[in-house]
């Protein structure tokens, strides 16, 4: 799965947690989940759990700390998918 495909899937994971749908449509790897998408930090764990289910991976504490920008989310997802392959 390439980065572009993961980004498209990631939009679906993020959608329930942002009211900024316009920004969500145009996200790129530099988009910050809290600052740009206005996602409440209390939903970050929800997003991590949803990403685990979507990609059938397990995201540990250290990796979860990196999931604040779309690009780093994709890095973590690819890393974990490769580990479980």
């Amino acid at each position, binding site marked *: 799965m390439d980065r572009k495909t993961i980004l498209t899937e990631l939009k679906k994971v993020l959608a329930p947690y942002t*009211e900024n749908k316009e920004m969500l449509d145009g996200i790129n790897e530099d988009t910050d989940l809290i600052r740009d998408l*206005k996602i*409440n930090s*209390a939903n970050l764990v*929800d997003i*991590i*759990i949803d990403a*685990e289910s979507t990609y059938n991976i397990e995201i540990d504490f250290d990796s*979860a700390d990196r999931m*604040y920008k779309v690009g780093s989310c994709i890095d973590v997802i690819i890393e974990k998918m490769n580990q479980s392959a």
Partner: protein
Amino acid sequence: MRSTGNDIVALALVNKQRTSQFRFYSKILSVSEQKLYHQPELQQLPFENYVWLLWSVKESAYKYLKRLDPTLIFSPTNIIIQHIVIPGLSFDESVAAQWESTCEDAGLYSGKVVHGPHTLYFRAKINEAWIASVVNDDECFDHVCWGVKSIDNAGYKYQSLEARLALINKLNGFLQGDLRIEKSSVGYPVIVNYDEETGVPASLAHDGYFVAYSFVLSSDIVLT
């Protein structure tokens, strides 16, 4: 450098079932905090409230420390609550449209939170609608002013505006002038009076239909 940090969790937005799943709460609670819940005094607190109480305190501590170290990344399991004191009063079922801290409030949770070399102290209030918390670097909270207000619209822009308004309205009781709030490059609020920074550390939070604020008064003003 003085600092403050606060947070609020709207309990109506909490997914109780998900919160009670290990794979969820283990991303928030450290192993020692999972064990801490088994102390008998804490059993009166529903587990989902325990998880979100600790989340809230960790958020507050993060906001406090972020002002001191702008490079800090929020890592819930690395901010450790070591000790929790249960309030003397039983669970507060009343949900007022507006709540403000007082020195005599016997209905507050309190305790110690540690991140690396930093030791902070917290106060927290829980009722049916929300969990609010604030942290300080001293066990005495006589100079820490914090409060919660309900709002009519849970849209992000409205939440942000109402949180700022609640803070300014409360600050106006202590500082005279033309107060307004700017945002630092890191993201925390900066209180400005007649275009000059006041040096009053402040923090804002919102979730669902609630906004919350905290600020620290100078040592010559004591909260009553």
